[in-house]
């Protein structure tokens, strides 16, 4: 008699009569799953939807993060010279959500950040960002660009002539809607 430990596995169709076709899932469950997935698409892009639908338009100067090779693949990483960097001292706001009030430079018409706060300012516009102690992430840090426009934008950004067009809603959530080269 062979050892019980050598009994090979027998794979059986689960919960079905032998030879019957596999049980098909009920269509309503499949439709419900597809609807739930559609909702999840909305959830995934929600941070960018709200400012696009309800936000006001503002323009800020923008620079590439990597001036040597600003384009990685199909998007460019952006930084905003007009936004303050998190200060690295004991008085710095704690890591986490921070708020950046914006003020307009009358000579250029562009907007820039004034300071960092850990409570929302009383008046708009302001940006709601996440700070990790090293940099701010405000949801406007990258721009997906078709290859044809890449060279033109790259030249403009190196010469400091690129401007990001943002939409910011009343809660400080921002979305970048365009990146344009100015002369």
């Amino acid at each position, binding site marked *: *008699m062979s050892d019980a430990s050598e009994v090979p596995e027998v794979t059986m169709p689960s919960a079905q009569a032998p030879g019957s076709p596999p049980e098909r899932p009920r269509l309503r469950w499949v439709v419900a*799953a*597809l609807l739930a997935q559609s909702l999840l698409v909305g959830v995934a*892009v929600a941070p*960018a939807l709200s400012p696009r639908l309800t936000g006001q338009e503002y323009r800020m100067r923008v620079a590439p993060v990597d001036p040597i090779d600003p384009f990685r693949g199909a998007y460019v990483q952006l930084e905003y010279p007009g936004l303050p960097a998190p200060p690295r001292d004991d008085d710095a706001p704690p890591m986490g959500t921070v708020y950046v009030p914006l003020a307009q430079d009358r000579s250029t018409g562009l907007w820039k950040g004034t300071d960092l706060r850990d409570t929302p300012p009383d008046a708009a516009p302001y940006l709601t960002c996440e700070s990790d102690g090293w940099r701010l992430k405000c949801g406007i*840090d990258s721009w997906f660009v078709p290859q044809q426009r890449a060279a033109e934008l790259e030249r403009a950004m190196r010469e400091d002539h690129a401007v990001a067009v943002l939409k910011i809603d009343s809660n400080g959530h921002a979305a970048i809607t365009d990146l344009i080269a100015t002369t």
Partner: protein
Amino acid sequence: MVETASGRGTAPGRGEPGDTRHPVSVRTMRWLDEQLREWERDGLVTGTAAATIRSRYVAETKVKLLAIVTGLGVAFVAIGLIWLVAANLDGLPPLARLAAVAAVWLGLAAAAEVIRSERLTAVCRTLAAAAFGAVIFQAAQSLQVPAFEPALIGCWGLGALLYAYATRSLGAFAVGLAAGIGWFAWQIAETAHGIAETAIAVLCGAIVATAVAVAHAGRLHRARPEFATGWRLAGAGFALVGLFMAALPFGEPESGRSPWQPGVLWMLGIAAATAAAALMLAGRSTRTAIRGEDGRPPAARLGWELLVLAVILALGTALVLWQPDSGALENLDPSRMTPQLWARTTTSILVFLAAAAWFAMLGTWRDAPSLTSVALIALVLFTTFQSFAVFAPIISGATLFLAVGAVMLATGLAAERVRRRLTRRRARPGKKSTKEATS
């Protein structure tokens, strides 16, 4: 049509309508033939009965290669679809691109419900789960959602899992679970600071994954037992990775930063709540089930899995918080190995060994050989790492391998002896009750 094994008439061939034979591997068929000959020789079955039993099974020859090629094909198409999105083709406006990708996704999902071929349906469902990811990434790209957002992967994983459970598709489940694991690892890497926080968070993830596996009791488990195995694999993987990190002697908490950050406390709360909910769900699903061999209801045995994970979490947390001076190891200075450092290092090895042994045993208990394999591979990797990264300045890695190997041999032989005794004891209940009846 083919002639039956008993020689009486014909039966449908494999795959033909009316074919009621179960497919088994060639090895299994050979074992069955052997057993039937023995039973016939011992007079347990007649020749006719043996032929009837044998005719219920058919050995299926190697479609394994075809399955591998098909699987690879599915994986390549899925990756290609997502890559196409990442390429940011400008031939179409962003919204048109989104509509096109969504059409591919819904088309695959609809095809899966219409096609009657089981294999093609499985392929379509797997591709639909992958295409859902492409829809999310395309939507994010069209709306300029910042690159490298873990939430996108999380939404993909959740959606794919919902679809998998609705359709009971193993392929879609694999896509969803992989995306979910990727999201979890990325999220932890982004938010946790230091090894202590990361290890505790990962160990909490192990409890959540195992709790989901435990919740797969009753009808859901019978419909797709592989789902529970997948969750158990994820739980085991997280537990072993968490212990691996906790065992590192190099990580010290960032100065002035307690590991008990709000994120970690939330994770602990979620782990506890998920475990409690899973036990309630499992208990309700198996309330009318036949009691286990040992007389206890199945839910009680499922509770052991979560209890062990809780112990692993506690031990891992204790290890990360126990950080004697590790300067001896950092500076390769064996003369500075303090008794505390020896104690910690030895304890961490024993804890990892015990955890790996538990998961190896669980793999056998739950009929999940992949779980056993993962545990053993993790043990080899851990021992190798400890040899070269930790013990190299002190003793040779070979000595550590010898020590761990000796412990495992002794444990394995002792466990086998206990198993044989238990098997013999279980084989005697009839004799025992007869004795009691006559005494």
